[in-house]
Each structure stands twice: as C-alpha cells, then as structure tokens.
C-alpha cells in the first residue's frame, strides 16, 4: 500500500495511468487510459479525478512521462568529475543542447554507467533538456488533482528505464525501440542500458492519409537508422522493438524487417509484471500493455527520487548518497556483521554450554544415589551413636555400697549427715549436707580433715563446697545435776554442704 505509485504517460490529448508497486516483478494494481481528444480542455482535470475515483486508484504519488517533441536527449561521455564540476558542465551542455527554437528549458541528467575507453575511466551521462512548458503544463494540470506530482521526465527516458528493467542485453548489442505515442513517435537506440540516440518525431493523424503516414514513418525510421549508423558506426542494431498504440505496428514490423534487414518484434514485458494484486480482467489489460510502456517505465523505480526529474529543485542527487549516509550504511552493515558474529558465537557457545550442562546434569544424577547412600549411612551412624549414648546413660556403674561405706569411714565423730542427695544429669553428683558440733576449734579441724579425706576418695572426680560454711557458737549450760567439776565450754556448730562429682555413671 505504502509504495504504490501512479505512472503516467501524459499529453493534453491522452493520459495513460498505471498504479504499480515496486518489486522484482512490478506489481500492477490498476490502470486507466483517458482519451481527452473529445473532451473540453477545461474539463479534462475533472475527467481525470472522476476516473481515479471510479476506477478505485489508491496511490497518491504520481510520476509523469511527458509526451512532447521539444525535448533533447544527449549521451555524454565524461571523465569522473566532482559533483560541483559535473553540475557546471551539465548546465553548459544543457544550454548548448536546447531544442531548436526553445529559449527556456529545464534539464536534468543521469549517470547511466561507467566504462573504460583506452584505459581511461569515463562515465556515460544522459542529459535531457526540455522546453519549460512541457514540465509546467504537467505541473499545472496535476496541481489541480488529488495527486502529488513527484517527477516529470520524458517518454524516452521512461522507455529506457523500462528496457533496463526488462534487461535482455548481449554485450555491445544495440536495440532500437520505436514507440508510438500520442502525436509523436519516439525512436530510441539503446546499448547495454545506455541511450545512444533518441528522436522524437511529431506526426499528425488528422490531415494525412494512413498510407502516407505509414510511408512517412518508414522514411523517418530509415533516416533515424541512417543517422545512428553515421554517428555510431561501431553500433550493430540487433533488433527493432515496437510499442505503443497504433494500427500500423503490425505492418511496420514486417516492412522494417524486409526493407532494413533488421530483426523486428513487439516490445513485450508481460512476464515482468506481477498480476497478483490486479483489479479487473488481466487478459483485457494485456491488450493495453504495449501502449502503457512509458507509464510502466516512468514508475518502475524503487523510489520516486531515482532517475531524471525535470521539475526544478526536485532533481535527485547524482553523486550517490552523501557521506554521512554512506557512513550510516557502513555502520549498519558493520553492526549487523557484529550481531551476526555474536549470534554465531552465541549459538556455538550455547550449544557447548548446553552439552556441558547435560554432562554436569548426568554426573549429578549419577552422584545423587551415592550421596543418598552416604547420607543414609551417616544418618544410621548418627542414630547408632545417639542410641549408644542413650543406652549408656541407663546402667548404673556406681558401687553405692562401697561409696557409702567409704563415706562412713571418714565421717568425724562430731559430724552429722542430714541429707545425702544423688543428682543425675549431665554431671552426676552426690550432695551431702550436715553439720559438725563440738568444742570450739575442734569442729573446724574436724571439718578440714573430713573435707581433705573426702577429696582423696577415689569415687569422686572433684569435691567442692556448694555453699559457704556456716559457723555458729553456743554456750553449753551446765546440767542441773552437774557437780562442781563441770567445766562449761563454748560449743561450735559448722554447717556444710559439699558437692562431690561422681566418676562413674549413675
């Protein structure tokens, strides 16, 4: 949709339109041929707009091949020049090649191809100079339509572009194109995409009998051929191709072949068209294809900027894209190249890593049973250890009889054990509480000896005072029946609590 464009062969008497989209094969959407000869000039624009609407044209951009004879095509062969020099030379050459009797012209040029002559690089440039009215007429006409006029070129240049796209060239072979336009016949001599010569021959169909017209055209074709051979003696005309809309084409094909000895044919390019999006009957359309050749030729471009443009100020650049565009293009290619390299690296790297990951996964899967078995073994060992520890707490290893007997052997006469408590837990201990009562001084000595003896018993790992000693004194009253020999003394009471850690388990 976006790249649709209208290719138009324009003359005041006839407008031929094709709606196309650029591609390897030119996609054809629609076409129309408007014969304005019977229409009042003031209503021709209305006729165009009506046709565009009724026939369902969707393209808004239009490129025009203007059908006029006040046009001069010149092929120049020049050494490579800078853009500024080239423009200067072209302006000079355009002044020199203005059509006869024309003072005001528009011109544009197109670099066709580079070639080498005697080891010198040269460029073939097509310079087109046209009377200003050819361009302004088209601009004024289409300015009143809904179309946006992007380009005005000549029928000759449009045909050259068409033939370049059809492209069936042999080296150094010259093809002659004879196109019957509205009010003129265009004779082109083309070699490998370069237009060597172009003649625009005006013809009038009104005041001349058909036989005379035919003879006149034959004469013009012969003159054109002779002129070409004089100017390009090396050029060998291989074939003459006829296009356009004329009843004379059939007769002329056979006449030219017999009189000039040149192979003749009709210019066909049906196979270069893509009918997939065409609206209407394709077979009916095929009948009109030869007459639409310039309309196809002017529109068959990737963008409307390409090729010649006679509209002042709209001529495309001739020296290729500016430097920054080239830089952007190079940078884009470089970036895409780097992306490609990274893509390749990523693909190969990810494949390696995936393979490596698969190996790792396989190894992990192989190790998991081993680790599970080891973990189960550790768990069993841990459980067995815990069980052994638990069981070990059960059986008492304490020889209570011996322990208590040993205690009884070291108890001083002044001592009284009030409680003996056996405490189990992390540390098994024997806690003895009691007191010693006796004469002052005696109890302290007794406890000291008792404590030393306790510590020397082999049943305990350690013996300590779990509470501080408490020493109190009390007077011993004489009994009632005491005699005079009774000697009252001050009694001492030492209260103790010792904690003895047992060597053995309870």
């Amino acid at each position, binding site marked *: 949709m976006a790249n649709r464009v209208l290719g138009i062969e324009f003359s005041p008497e006839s407008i031929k339109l094709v709606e196309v989209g650029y591609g390897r094969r030119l996609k054809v959407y629609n076409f129309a041929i408007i014969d304005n000869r019977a229409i009042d000039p003031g209503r021709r624009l209305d006729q165009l707009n009506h046709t565009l609407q009724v026939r369902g044209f969707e393209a808004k951009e239009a490129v025009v091949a203007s059908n006029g004879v006040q046009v001069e095509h010149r092929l120049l062969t020049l050494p490579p020049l800078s853009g500024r020099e080239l423009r200067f030379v072209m302006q000079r050459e355009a002044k020199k090649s203005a059509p006869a009797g024309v003072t005001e012209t528009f011109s544009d040029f197109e670099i066709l191809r580079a070639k080498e002559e005697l080891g010198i690089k040269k460029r073939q440039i097509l310079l087109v100079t046209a009377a200003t009215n050819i361009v302004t007429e088209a601009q004024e006409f289409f300015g009143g339509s809904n179309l946006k006029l992007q380009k005005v070129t000549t029928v000759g240049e449009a045909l050259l572009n068409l033939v370049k796209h059809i492209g069936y060239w042999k080296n150094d072979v010259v093809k002659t194109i004879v196109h019957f336009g509205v009010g003129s016949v265009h004779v082109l001599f083309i070699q490998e995409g370069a237009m060597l010569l172009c003649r625009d021959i005006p013809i009038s169909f009104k005041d001349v009998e058909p036989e005379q017209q035919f003879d006149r055209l034959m004469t013009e074709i012969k003159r054109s051929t002779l002129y070409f051979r004089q100017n390009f003696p090396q050029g060998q005309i291989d074939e003459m191709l006829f296009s356009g809309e004329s009843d004379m084409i059939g007769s002329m094909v056979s006449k030219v072949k017999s009189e000039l000895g040149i192979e003749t044919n009709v210019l066909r390019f049906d196979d270069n068209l893509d009918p997939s999006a065409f609206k209407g009957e394709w077979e009916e359309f095929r009948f009109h294809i030869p007459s639409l050749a310039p309309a196809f030729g002017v529109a068959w471009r990737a963008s409307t900027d390409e090729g010649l443009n006679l509209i002042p100020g709209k001529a495309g650049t001739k020296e290729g894209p500016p430097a920054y565009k080239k830089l952007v293009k190079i940078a884009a290619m470089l970036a895409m190249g780097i*992306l490609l390299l990274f893509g390749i690296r*990523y693909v190969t790297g*990810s494949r390696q*890593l995936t393979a490596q990951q698969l190996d790792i996964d396989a190894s992990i899967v192989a190790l998991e049973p081993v680790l599970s078995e080891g973990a189960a073994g550790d768990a069993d060992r841990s459980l*067995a250890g815990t069980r052994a520890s638990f069981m070990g707490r059960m059986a*008492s290893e304490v020889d*209570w009889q011996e322990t208590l007997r040993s205690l009884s052997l070291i108890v001083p006469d002044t001592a009284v054990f009030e409680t003996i408590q*056996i405490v189990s837990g992390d540390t098994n201990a024997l806690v003895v509480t009691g007191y010693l009562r006796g004469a002052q001084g005696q109890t302290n000595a007794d406890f000291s000896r008792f404590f030393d003896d306790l510590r020397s018993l082999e049943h305990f790992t350690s013996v300590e005072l779990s509470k501080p000693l408490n020493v109190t004194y009390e007077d011993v009253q004489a009994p009632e029946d005491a005699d005079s020999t009774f000697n009252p003394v001050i009694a001492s009471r030492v209260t103790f609590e010792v904690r003895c850690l047992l060597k053995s388990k309870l």
Partner: protein
Amino acid sequence: MHVVGYGAAIVLSIAGVVMLTLQMGKLEAAATEGQDELAGMERQAEAIVLPTDEERARWSTDQNLMASMLLADAEIPALLQDVTRLATLNQLGRFELATEEFVIADGAELSPDQALMQSVGILRHITVTVGFSADYRNVAEFVRDVGNLPRLVEFVSVQLTRQPSTISVTMSFRVYQSETAA
C-alpha cells in the same frame, strides 16, 4: 528513509549484541554454578565413609537390645512387682511407691533429654518414685538391684535423709516404654 532504516538496524544490532552478551553471560554463570555444584558433590562423595557390615551388625544388635529392654504397657505391673520384691529383699522399711506416665506430645517443646529420647524413637516412659527407710548398706544394694533390672532404667534423683537410727530415702527413676500403647 534509508538512513532511518539503517539507523534502526544499528540500534537493533546493538540491542541484539547486548542481549546476546547478557544471555551468554547468564548461560556461562549457570554452567559455572553447575560445575561448582558438581565439584561440591564430588568432594562430598569422596568424603563418604559407608558403614561396614560389622558396624551395621552392631547397630542392629544394639537396636534389638534396646527394643527388647523397652517396657510394654502390659509389663508395668510386673515391673512394680519386681521393685517391690527388691525392696523386700533389701529389708526396706516403710516402703512407698508411685508412678507417673509421660508421653511426648506432637509439637511439644522438648528438653534436651526428651529430644535425645525422641531421636532414638522412644516417646513414652514412666517415672517411678519410691520412698523407704533403711541403713546405708541396704539403700546401696537396692539402688544397685534396681539399676540391674532388665529394663531401660535411668535414675533421676536419690535423696538420703538421716533419721534417728536409720536413713529415709526418696528415689525416682525412669523406665522407658515401647512406642505402642496398650
């Protein structure tokens, strides 16, 4: 238009390169992580010491022994009878006996002793508390005899208090039970 397209191609290419680099970094990180994990597992595997047959046989014996020593509910009367018999045998006076049952409840907070008990698969025990009067020799022999009962018996506390001409004893011990309730 073409410049815009080329510019877009540059931007997209740079974005693609960045994305691919990041993605590649992720893959490499994942691979490194996998290698580290594998190396760790290999080290663990090398460190594994599987239990020997002798160890397993010993553990099995211990387990069977423990299981055989656990007290079934039906055996509690016999146990109490045994304790009473030992009291008589050791001439204990004023002998008194009380029992209390303990069960580890689901989700209950456990003391270290209870956690150890649970870790070996024991969830219940009874605590037997006895009180009696005797002399030192009989006390000692009674304690020894109770400890030698063919059960998992663990002493909790023994308290001897001197009385005129004898010793008053309060003693408690646990007897661990098998899991199955009666």
